[in-house]
């Protein structure tokens, strides 16, 4: 260990004494030195010290001084600003009356206070909108401050401490972005790690022959960002030492629908615009949301919806999906203390996962930390008592599948229920007209339960889209649990029957439409498209204007352009496909399908654009939201911001936030606004298979079908 203070005194031992700051007090501890440590002339093994105390080590006398405490803005609009704490109370905020005034629009007028009581400093939130954070934890009551602490106020990151503390913190923050020092490792280095002891140097050497920089040791200082949500990458991280916090900085906002069914609209409710608005309130939950819902991320634990932060410790692995399948990073990882991590490429990760002991360690960690929560969060298990969940947890098996591998085939007897741990599973049904994708299952969702419940064969096949790891619950274990809960069994069975019936109805429609072009346009998989009867439409664009008016960002979700089928225009608006390819790969599972089969994008979208790129019809758009207007939603988080030119202030930039948006069918209203606002009865929301099945089969010969694209 290196000394912070080196003394050229032969009477001083190599490691003589240690000064530490404990609970707002300074203490000196003698490190079993040869000549002892003296405080104000008295030899002490350990003692509290104050400013002005005289410390003697060997022949050297030291006067203890802490230096004036300061606040330094490390990041934010006032970066570099310093403020000396000379009074008993320092208020931080935007108000001119504040001792420390910030220009950060995310900070409240009176945001936080630092108060000195009995020589100890406390951080107090002054009722701010976005909250005050100390070391990433929200401050809800007076919290003791220690030199070296970070304070987050809006978008401003402050450091608290003496000149020396601040200099160290500024240094640690200087290389914030992926700045962890990188030391490429060799096979000889790898065998020294106990966790990987099972892998011989020869096996490591083979991997390094492919890529001699396949793994590196990286050191991160406290506060460093290891990876950011939404960024693309190809590596996974294994924590050797230190703590890492994973979070999504996406504001936890809900699209509060004023048009919600249960909301009283009053006498003049009809005058109120039926828009949706972004809200930080959690009082509104849509019919399928659950208060305890978790956000799946690419880490051993998921994020809780109300508190999207998880702490990872040494021995944890994160970034597996990014590494194996090149999905965007699902969350931002920040070093909570000085950390050492191994950053590895896919071949190294694959090798590690083949090592039995390492795999067992990962599985053990997963079982202990995430499995219970994931099982708990399965909607079908919502009514299951905890002891039953525990029982299931102890009996499940973890299995892996390669991309394309079949997990089970259609028409085979169901012997297990599966829950996805990593990756995406495609549910596909073979029928006379070809394969029909019924859906995709992602992390935390179950499949295969229908045949187990009903006792029949699997009505669809399931195959791995990418590298998939699943939790397998054997039929007998599953039945042992649910048989003891007849009401749950009845409920699950009813759900299964309902889904089976809806699949059957949907599949029945497809053979009735034998037209090749219809299939080529992807209309059989569309469930709810905006059709415009061009014979009626005067191209007045009232539907587009109405759609824009119905959203508080003023941006339309539909474009009166697209493919044509006969005299119908299939407008560019979400089709809520039965094969929603947009759902493949969402790193945080924010795009999902409701029970009513509509595709929705949940509030915690991180703006990685994957769904937009995956949509074959270009119907998911990335919109920019003005951060300044949404400051009340972030609760002090630091979302990934894009600076764009401000059209109103030439030469200036505006901080914007990118989020995926798609048509929500004006959920909660009896009729979508675009249809409601069409004065010519030309716009309609229809299931195209159902809509065209009668028309095409009866009235139009295939060769007479008008077919074209305005693109």
């Amino acid at each position, binding site marked *: 260990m290196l000394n912070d203070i080196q003394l050229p005194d032969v009477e001083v031992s190599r490691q003589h004494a240690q000064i530490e700051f404990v609970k707002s007090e300074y203490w000196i501890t003698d490190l079993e030195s040869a000549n002892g440590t003296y405080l104000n002339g008295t030899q002490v093994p350990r003692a509290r010290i104050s400013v002005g105390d005289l410390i003697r080590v060997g022949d050297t006398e030291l006067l203890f001084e802490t230096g004036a405490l300061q606040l330094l803005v490390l990041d934010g609009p006032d970066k570099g600003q310093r403020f000396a704490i000379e009074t008993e109370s320092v208020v931080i905020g935007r108000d001119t009356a504040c001792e420390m005034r910030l220009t950060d629009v995310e900070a409240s007028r009176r945001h936080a206070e630092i108060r000195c009581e009995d020589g100890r400093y406390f951080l107090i939130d002054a009722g701010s909108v976005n909250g005050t954070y100390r070391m990433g934890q929200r401050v809800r009551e007076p919290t003791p401050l220690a030199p070296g602490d970070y304070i987050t106020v809006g978008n401003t990151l402050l450091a608290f401490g003496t000149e020396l503390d601040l200099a160290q913190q500024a240094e640690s923050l200087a290389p914030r972005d992926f700045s962890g020092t990188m030391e490429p490792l060799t096979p000889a280095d790898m065998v020294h790690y106990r966790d990987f002891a099972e892998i011989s140097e020869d096996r490591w050497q083979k991997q390094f022959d492919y890529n001699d920089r396949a793994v590196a040791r990286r050191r991160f200082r406290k506060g460093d960002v290891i990876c950011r949500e939404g960024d693309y990458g190809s590596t996974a991280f294994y924590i050797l030492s230190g703590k890492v916090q994973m979070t999504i900085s996406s504001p936890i906002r809900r699209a509060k629908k004023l048009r919600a069914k249960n909301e009283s609209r009053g006498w003049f409710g*009809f*005058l109120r*615009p*039926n*828009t949706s608005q972004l809200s930080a309130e959690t009082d509104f939950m849509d019919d399928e949301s659950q208060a305890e819902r978790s956000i799946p991320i690419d880490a051993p634990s998921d994020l809780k919806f109300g508190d999207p932060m998880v702490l990872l410790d040494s021995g944890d692995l994160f970034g597996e999906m990014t590494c194996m399948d090149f999905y965007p990073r699902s969350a931002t990882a920040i070093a909570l203390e000085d950390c050492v991590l191994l950053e590895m490429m896919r071949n190294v990760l694959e090798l590690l996962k083949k090592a039995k002991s390492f795999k067992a360690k990962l599985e053990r960690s997963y079982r202990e930390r995430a499995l219970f929560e994931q099982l708990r969060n399965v909607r079908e298990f919502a009514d299951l008592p905890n002891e039953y969940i525990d029982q299931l947890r102890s009996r499940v098996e973890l299995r892996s599948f390669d991309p394309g591998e079949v997990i089970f085939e259609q028409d085979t007897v169901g012997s297990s229920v599966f829950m996805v741990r990593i990756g995406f599973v495609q549910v596909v049904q073979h029928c006379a007209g070809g394969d029909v994708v019924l859906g995709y299952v992602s992390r935390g969702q179950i499949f295969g339960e229908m045949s187990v419940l009903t006792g029949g064969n699997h009505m669809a096949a399931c195959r791995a889209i990418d590298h998939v790891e699943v939790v397998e619950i054997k039929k007998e274990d599953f039945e042992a649990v649910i048989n003891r809960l007849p009401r749950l069994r009845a409920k699950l069975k009813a759900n299964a029957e309902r889904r089976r019936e809806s699949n059957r109805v949907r599949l029945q429609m497809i053979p009735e439409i034998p037209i090749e072009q219809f299939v080529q346009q992807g209309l059989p998989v569309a469930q709810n498209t905006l059709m415009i009867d*061009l*014979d*009626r*439409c*005067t*191209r*007045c*664009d*009232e539907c587009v*204007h*109405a759609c824009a*008016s*119905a959203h508080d960002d003023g941006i339309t979700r539909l*474009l*009166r*352009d697209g493919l*044509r089928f006969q*005299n119908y225009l299939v407008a560019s608006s979400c089709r809520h496909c039965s094969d929603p390819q947009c759902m493949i790969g969402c790193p945080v599972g924010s795009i999902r399908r409701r029970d009513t089969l509509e595709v929705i994008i949940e509030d915690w979208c991180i703006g990685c654009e994957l769904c937009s790129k995956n949509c074959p019809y270009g119907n998911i758009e990335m919109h920019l939201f003005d951060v300044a207007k949404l400051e009340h939603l972030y609760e002090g988080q630091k979302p990934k911001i894009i600076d764009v030119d401000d059209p109103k202030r030439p030469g200036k930039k505006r901080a914007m936030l990118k989020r995926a948006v798609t048509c929500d069918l004006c959920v909660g*209203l009896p*009729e979508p*606004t675009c249809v*409601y*606002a*069409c*004065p*010519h*009865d030309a716009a309609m929301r229809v299931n195209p298979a159902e809509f065209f099945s009668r028309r095409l089969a009866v009235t139009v010969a295939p060769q007479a079908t*008008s077919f*074209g694209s*305005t693109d």
Partner: protein
Amino acid sequence: MIIDSGHKRWAAVTTALAVVAAALYGVTVWKTPNGPSGGSWPGLLFGIAGSSLMLFAGLLSARKQVPTWRVGRASTWLKGHIWLGMLSVPLIAFHSAFRWGGPLEIVLWIVFGVIVASGLFGLALQQFLTRMMTTGAPLETIYEQIPQVCAAMLADSDALVAGVCGPLEGLPAPAAEAAGEKKGKPKKAEPLAGSGPLKEFYLHEVRPFLSDRFSRTHRLADAPRVAATFAQVRVVLPTTLHDAIEQLQARCEERRQLALQARLHHWLHGWLFVHVPLSVALLVLGVAHAIVALRY
């Protein structure tokens, strides 16, 4: 709006109300020795009813400004606008007792007449122009984007022809750049053998047609002549150029359709430039008429 079976109920109610109003008017004529007038109670009632219907018709524009308000479907409002607006004609006629009145009233009559006529004209156009656009311009795009689409098409065509015929001399700078004549960089593509006539044809026939100034008298503006012209060009040019010729032909067809779309769009919406401002004027004049009539 297409007038179809969905309008039956509106037509029936409007006709019934018109018949009732006519009967009332007949009774008024019969009971009034000197004939009815706008200032009599029946006349005033007809006037108020007619004005109210006109006001309702005028509210359609206001309704469109708030598309998210759930105050009735826009199509219902439009149907009401059409039918109740038409019902206002006999009511106003009964109000005036079929007399022109003073100068203000004459102006009112003229404005009202033009509004009704322009409305019916627009309605009539909508019965067939929308279908005409659907069938005649399957490659239509969003109207506001037509200039951009045309510009992109022109730039693509310049690049296409420059690729097979060599640099196109005499183009404006942006077009030349698009065609590959970047400053300081020699054109890489060598002209294909026998491509000279294609270049001439493009510069003198196709390019002017694709440009902003669309001419309906241009020979490429006529679909059958387009096919014939390009067939001739194909005959005289080597097969190596046929692919480029087909692409040019497709673009000419698209340009022709976009021009047709623009033309039909003007017809579909142009009448509103008469109908809407005059409607506002009518409401203002109507108020003036009411004040003048009641006060004097």
